[in-house]
């Protein structure tokens, strides 16, 4: 019992007792006893001093402030005494808390954190809101709202007008998107490093209120003349992280001459740590003056690209006031209105909160991360239920210890506190370990959502993450510790103490119902997780296996950046021909075709169509999307032609073969078009009208029907689409993409892409913006589902493991307590198989109770997130059956070992047990 350090106070108490004993002994001596007799009599009259000292310690523990450290010391010792339980508990908590915190810290970085700037809540983000109506242009062109697309950003002249004559912002900054550029030190021969460069207006840093950690930041002066500001070339400000990464915090970095895409710049300063621009998820390495944009990115002019605008609201101005002021300004300023006619006729200006910057990851990943976090939260809950089970079992084993402590005067509250201290000790170990695990997990997760770069999001351990981890650790500690503690202290003292071995008879098994309830709860929660995970797995599989209509593996897509090179119409067609010819000379290339609209890329055009015999509904759009493609498009993209023929040289530049009609054109339509306009009849040979009544009215003859191919979201049904022959519409060529089909291994894609980029470099004024395999484009549109599947599968695997341990532990414990009963049964003639059956029946009853609760709960949850599933409903018999079978099998396996052991109980041993 000597598990406590002796204190001064212990010694003084001992002295007091010795004095008392000595006085008693004196008294007996005086009554005529021998010294030994007197000493023994005194001891007898006084009672057990050791026990008394224990009681004193117990009591003083609740008296002194150091009782916490005593409780902790005692708790640690109690945990050390059962290393198996402690290891299991710590592992469970570590995983549970770690996983939750990891996801939380990513969500924190995406959703909760504000930019590290002065008064972030004063920042407002200007954005363009697509019109809710179809847009009518003066020349008769109508653009339906579904073709407007996303916010294109503000043209630079509009920015200047807004900046110079608004009354609501104390300052307004413009910021181009992050450019990936080649970085090198001037005069060095090192291989160029790819960096993220953000061209910003001169007032960028002063408006955000960011101060340099070294040198100076950019000023409005730097942003006036192209290539000025620094001693040589324009100025550049580097981020702290880049300073650390590239220059290892060398203070001599200010004044260094660098090159970005071959253009000279001079580093003038370093931004403070943690500040890396307002694009959350795409941190900037280097900021340069916005006037340098055309130099850095040939073909880009400040007038024809969109900028992000961030304003700092004047004191007392709300975002609503700013928004109406912006709209008022546009309409009251005829110059501005005329100049931005095109943009402003399609979009309205909106003002939203800018305190958290701009992030594309936020919208894409927040919902799925929240779902995954709920899944991981469930795992933690299961882990808590599991620990509660283990603690209940342990509490039963510690009943005698607890009874003794209760009866010798320790208050029930004190014992509960002591037991809770043990739980909370476990929880705090879980907290610290979980935080470490979370750091690693969060980095991994950022890598997943950003497509490989784990440094794009700072997921440091800030106070919110610390508090969150601590909160869930404490909550778990209370959750799994309180019920067992309450139950444990609720004992009948005399019965517990009278049972000499501390054993408890089977029928008086404490917490047996509690334990079963907890196991059933674990099974119910795992059922929810498993059903959810299998729905995500099926969704992911359905999306992956979905017939996108084109060949994913052997198709490349080249996007061109025409900028203001002046290539359009016939000139662009010529460029395309020339380029395609050179592409076809590359080994492995089978077919190439120019196209304007690209799957998962540039948007399609749209025009009103009139199909004879088809009467659209009153609210139905007359519009139909079209794509202008080259002759070999279907072969190059792998979209099968179901009927009719492809375009070819026989379709002359104005009409179909042999027909001389200046407005008759050929088209291939997709199945959705045939379904909608011809009710599924063969459309080949039919005619329809495009843009009726406008100067560009066209009569179209359908020459073929192609299989439906997905151009946008995989989840949405394919819309009707018209493929026009680009050779017949040369004058309207505005943009260019080329589809390339190659043969051989799909591994050949990489060298081919490099070769294509090389070919692209030789074209003056026109840049190859991107070369991608079709597979990558599709996969990139499918990032959330596989992630949800992977993470929820991992979560449910973990849950199953925990449940397995839980069922095994519970059954093993329950049967160990019933050894005597089993022995009697065996002695009375129960066969081994009877024992098996009994044990299995008991464990399966618990399992089915859990499933009965879990499956309906899972259905409710699945209905809540049904919009995220694809090709599978919220009620999916397959998922449910699989889950029920899996859980039953796991539970049966987990209870088999205890059952087998129970069946082998030797009745003689069992009867002597206890």
């Amino acid at each position, binding site marked *: 019992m000597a598990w406590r350090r002796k204190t001064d106070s212990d010694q003084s108490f001992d002295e*007091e007792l010795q004095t008392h004993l000595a006085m*008693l002994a004196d008294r007996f001596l005086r009554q005529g006893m021998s010294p030994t007799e007197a000493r023994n009599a005194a001891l007898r009259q006084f*009672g*057990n001093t050791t026990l008394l000292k224990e*009681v*004193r310690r117990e*009591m003083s523990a609740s008296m002194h402030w150091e009782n916490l450290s005593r409780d902790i010391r005692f708790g640690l010792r109690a945990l050390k005494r059962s290393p198996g339980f402690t290891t299991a508990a710590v592992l469970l908590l570590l995983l549970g808390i770690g996983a939750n915190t990891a996801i939380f810290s990513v969500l924190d970085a995406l959703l909760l954190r504000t930019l590290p700037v002065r008064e972030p809540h004063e920042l407002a983000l200007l954005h363009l809101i697509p019109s809710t109506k179809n847009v009518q242009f003066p020349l008769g062109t109508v653009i339906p709202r579904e073709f407007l697309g996303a916010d294109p950003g503000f043209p630079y002249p509009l920015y200047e007008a807004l900046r110079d004559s608004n009354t609501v912002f104390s300052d307004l900054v413009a910021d181009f998107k992050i450019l990936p550029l080649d970085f090198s030190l001037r005069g060095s021969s090192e291989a160029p490093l790819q960096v993220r460069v953000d061209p910003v207006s001169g007032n960028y840093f002063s408006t955000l209120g960011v101060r340099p950690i070294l040198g100076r930041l950019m000023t409005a002066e730097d942003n006036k003349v192209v290539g000025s500001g620094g001693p040589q070339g324009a100025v550049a400000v580097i981020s702290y992280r880049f300073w650390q990464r590239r220059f290892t915090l060398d203070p001599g970095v200010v004044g260094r001459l660098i090159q970005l895409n071959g253009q000279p710049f001079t580093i003038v300063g370093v931004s403070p740590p943690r500040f890396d621009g307002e694009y959350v998820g795409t941190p900037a390495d280097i900021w340069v003056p916005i006037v340098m944009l055309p130099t850095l990115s040939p073909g880009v002019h400040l007038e024809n690209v969109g900028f992000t605008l961030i304003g700092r609201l004047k004191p007392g101005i709300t975002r609503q006031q700013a928004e109406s002021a912006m709209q008022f300004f546009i309409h009251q300023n005829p110059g501005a209105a005329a100049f931005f006619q095109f943009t402003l006729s399609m979009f309205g200006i909106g003002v939203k909160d800018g305190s958290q910057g701009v992030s594309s990851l936020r919208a894409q990943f927040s919902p799925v991360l929240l779902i995954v976090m709920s899944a991981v939260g469930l795992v933690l809950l299961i882990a808590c239920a599991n620990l509660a089970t283990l603690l209940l079992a342990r509490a039963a084993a510690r009943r005698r210890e607890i009874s003794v402590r209760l009866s010798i005067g320790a208050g029930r509250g004190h014992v509960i506190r002591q037991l809770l201290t043990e739980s909370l000790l476990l929880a705090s170990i879980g907290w610290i370990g979980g935080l470490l695990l979370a750091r690693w997990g969060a980095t991994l997760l950022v890598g997943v959502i950003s497509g490989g770069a784990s440094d794009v999001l700072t997921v440091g351990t800030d106070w919110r993450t610390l508090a969150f981890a601590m909160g869930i650790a404490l909550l778990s500690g209370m959750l799994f510790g309180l019920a067992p503690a309450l139950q444990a202290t609720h004992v009948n003292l005399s019965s517990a103490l009278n049972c000499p071995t501390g054993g408890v008879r089977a029928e008086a098994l404490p917490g047996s119902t509690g334990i079963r309830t907890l196991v059933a709860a674990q099974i119910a929660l795992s059922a929810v997780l498993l059903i959810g995970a299998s729905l995500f797995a099926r969704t992911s599989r359905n999306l992956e296996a979905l017939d996108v209509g084109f060949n994913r593996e052997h198709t490349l897509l080249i996007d061109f950046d025409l900028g203001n090179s002046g290539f359009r119409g016939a000139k662009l067609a010529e460029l395309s021909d020339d380029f395609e010819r050179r592409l076809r000379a590359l080994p492995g290339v089978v077919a190439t075709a120019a196209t304007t609209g690209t799957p998962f890329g540039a948007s399609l055009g749209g025009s009103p169509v009139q199909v004879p015999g088809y009467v659209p509904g009153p609210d139905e759009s007359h519009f139909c999307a079209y794509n202008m493609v080259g002759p070999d498009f279907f072969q190059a993209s792998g979209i099968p032609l179901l009927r009719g023929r492809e375009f070819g040289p026989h379709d002359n530049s104005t009409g179909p073969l042999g027909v001389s009609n200046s407005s008759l054109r050929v088209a291939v339509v997709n199945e959705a078009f045939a379904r909608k306009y011809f009710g599924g009849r063969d459309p080949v040979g039919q005619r329809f009208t495009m843009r009726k009544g406008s100067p560009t009215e066209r009569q179209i003859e359908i020459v073929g029907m192609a299989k439906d191919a997905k151009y946008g979201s995989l989840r949405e049904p394919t819309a009707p689409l018209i493929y026009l022959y680009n050779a017949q519409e040369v004058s309207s060529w505005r943009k260019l993409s080329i589809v390339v089909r190659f043969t051989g291994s799909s591994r050949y894609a990489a060298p081919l892409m490099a070769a294509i980029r090389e070919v692209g470099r030789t074209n003056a004024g026109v840049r190859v913006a991107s070369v991608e395999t079709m597979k990558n484009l599709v996969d990139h549109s499918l990032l959330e589902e596989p992630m949800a599947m992977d993470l929820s599968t991992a979560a449910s695997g973990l849950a199953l493991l925990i449940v397995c341990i839980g069922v095994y532990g519970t059954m093993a414990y329950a049967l160990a307590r019933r050894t005597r009963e089993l022995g009697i049964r065996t002695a009375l003639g129960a066969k081994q198989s009877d024992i098996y059956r009994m044990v299995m029946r008991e464990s399966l009853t618990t399992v089915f109770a859990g499933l009965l609760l879990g499956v309906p709960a899972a259905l409710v949850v699945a209905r809540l997130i049904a919009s995220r599933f694809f090709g599978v409903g919220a009620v999916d018999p397959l998922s449910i059956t699989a889950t029920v079978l899996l859980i039953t099998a796991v539970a049966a396996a987990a209870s088999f070992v205890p059952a087998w052991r129970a069946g082998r109980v030797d009745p003689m041993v069992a009867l002597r047990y206890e």
Partner: protein
Amino acid sequence: MALWTAHRRRAILSYGMSKGRRSEILQGTLDLMVLQTLNAMGPMHGFGIARRIEQVSEQVLQLNEGTLYTALMRLQQQGWIDAEWGASENNRRAKFYSLTRSGRKQLEREAENWQRISGVIGRLLSLAR
């Protein structure tokens, strides 16, 4: 030895009434006796308190002297008594307990309470007869 300990322990732990000749003491009762003793006799050490109770109870109550210390600790914890080291009659170093002000108030309350309850019990027992 083990038996002896178990016996003693049970003696300390028992709440119930004994069928034996000598009554065991209810926990709260001992507290009240200690308070009253200190009130009547002034500061005393544990041995003295034990003797006083023994003397007053005329051997009717079985007092396990160790138990007395649990009562003393309890009372000290509540702030009803204070303790101070001093010298005993035989010049032994002993701890002297004395009543605090809140202890005196507690004694008044408890005494009143005791009177009331013993009155009730007394009436009840006389009615039953």
